[in-house]
């Protein structure tokens, strides 16, 4: 395209923002390369307009604030202002990845030992490791509330999926006992975002299941429920309910007494 051609004019014509499009049309009609550029702009603009702008989910907003203020509170004002802090705390999925590798090693070792006649060795060893895995997750969730999942940005070969698999196997092995050990329990209302984050992580990892005593199905799409858990917020019994895609569930918190929605509000 010749340098003297007004590319901004061509783009504005494609955008449809020209008050008087005649000069733009004249340019496009008289210059084949301008016409090609005009078509290119139409293509780009159409692609942009057809894709909705990304937005944070409510949970991501919660976690963002929680993570920002947690980092601010944990930093020493005199020493940390210039330090990039996002990488200063371990991501939960890195810890989970390490735990998954450990679990794999022990499980393989146990199988080898078991093959020589020690079936119970596998169960015992695996349970110990998976129990440690669950504990690590709890610690990591506390340390890094915003990083709710995703790929390992360090490029490690250990993926969150591997960690999730380890957690799922642990849950499958130990069933209700594990679910009980990881239940949300009693907490203060101020900790609700963190509890939602923990619950979400547990749903995604497969560690959370459905509770048969859940009776508030009419407040949510009962056919869509993937996990329910009891808890107590400021002494009031509540239900944590996950619906939709188990890998990216929507979470509601209901008052267990009248099934009213506690979260999300508004």
């Amino acid at each position: 395209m010749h340098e003297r051609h007004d590319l901004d004019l061509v783009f504005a014509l494609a955008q449809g923002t020209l008050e008087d499009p005649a000069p733009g049309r004249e340019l496009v009609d008289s210059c084949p390369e301008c016409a090609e550029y005009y078509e290119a702009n139409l293509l780009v603009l159409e692609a942009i307009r057809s894709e909705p702008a990304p937005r944070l989910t409510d949970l991501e907003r919660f976690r963002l604030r929680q993570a920002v203020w947690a980092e601010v509170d944990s930093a020493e004002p005199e020493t940390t202002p210039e330090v990039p802090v996002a990488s200063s705390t371990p991501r939960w999925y890195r810890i989970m990845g390490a735990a998954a590798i450990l679990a794999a090693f022990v499980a393989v070792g146990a199988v080898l030992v078991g093959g020589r006649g020690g079936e119970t060795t596998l169960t015992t060893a695996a349970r110990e490791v998976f129990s440690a895995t669950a504990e690590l997750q709890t610690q990591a969730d506390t340390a890094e509330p915003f990083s709710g999942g995703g790929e390992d940005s360090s490029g490690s070969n250990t993926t969150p999926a591997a960690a999730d698999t380890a957690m799922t196997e642990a849950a499958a092995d130990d069933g209700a006992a594990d679910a009980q050990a990881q239940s949300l329990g009693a907490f203060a209302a101020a900790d609700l975002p963190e509890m939602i984050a923990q619950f979400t992580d547990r749903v995604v990892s497969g560690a959370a299941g459905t509770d048969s005593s859940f009776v508030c199905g009419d407040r949510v799409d009962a056919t869509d429920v993937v996990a329910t858990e009891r808890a107590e917020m400021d002494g009031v019994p509540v239900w944590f309910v996950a619906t939709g895609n188990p890998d990216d569930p929507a979470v509601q918190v209901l008052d267990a007494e009248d099934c009213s929605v506690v979260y999300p509000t508004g």
Partner: protein
Amino acid sequence: MKDLADPDLLTRAVGGDRAAFDELMRRHEDRVLAICLRIMRDRENALDAVQETFLTVFRKAGQFRGDSLFSTWLYRVAVNTCYDQLRRMKRRPSDPLPEGYEPPDRRVDSALSAVELRPDLTTALAALSEEFRTTLVLADVEGLPIGEVAAILQVAEGTVKSRLHRARKELARILGNREAWG
């Protein structure tokens, strides 16, 4: 709080008013995510970048002189944060198109009529170089004026225009699988 301008909120935040900073985050977090997501291409990494961006802004709030819009400064921090993270990850900025991607039917005369066969915008953007992608995201996707994009990227407006023209042609070529753009 909602009636206050961004610089006033920032001043309050510097004075320790967390609600003021929360309001700033509320106003800008979606757009910061959009920018970071287009640059990083991975939601978790983008969320990390959003978190780090607001932490940086909070910590350096006292350094903001008001010579530019708050949003210009914020987006500059966001872009730099994304670049830093990309460098840290040592990941190649532009991945190739997905293996299963089939180019549009060349018999289709109009590129516009082949829209259903095109890669989506995110995939196509990923094939651009880092500087083309960032420039196009800020100017065309986010709709920021050329002058503000230049201020964010700290380059001349002419540079922004040049990158934009080339980025649009390249993106169109990818979207329409056209080979005519030089």
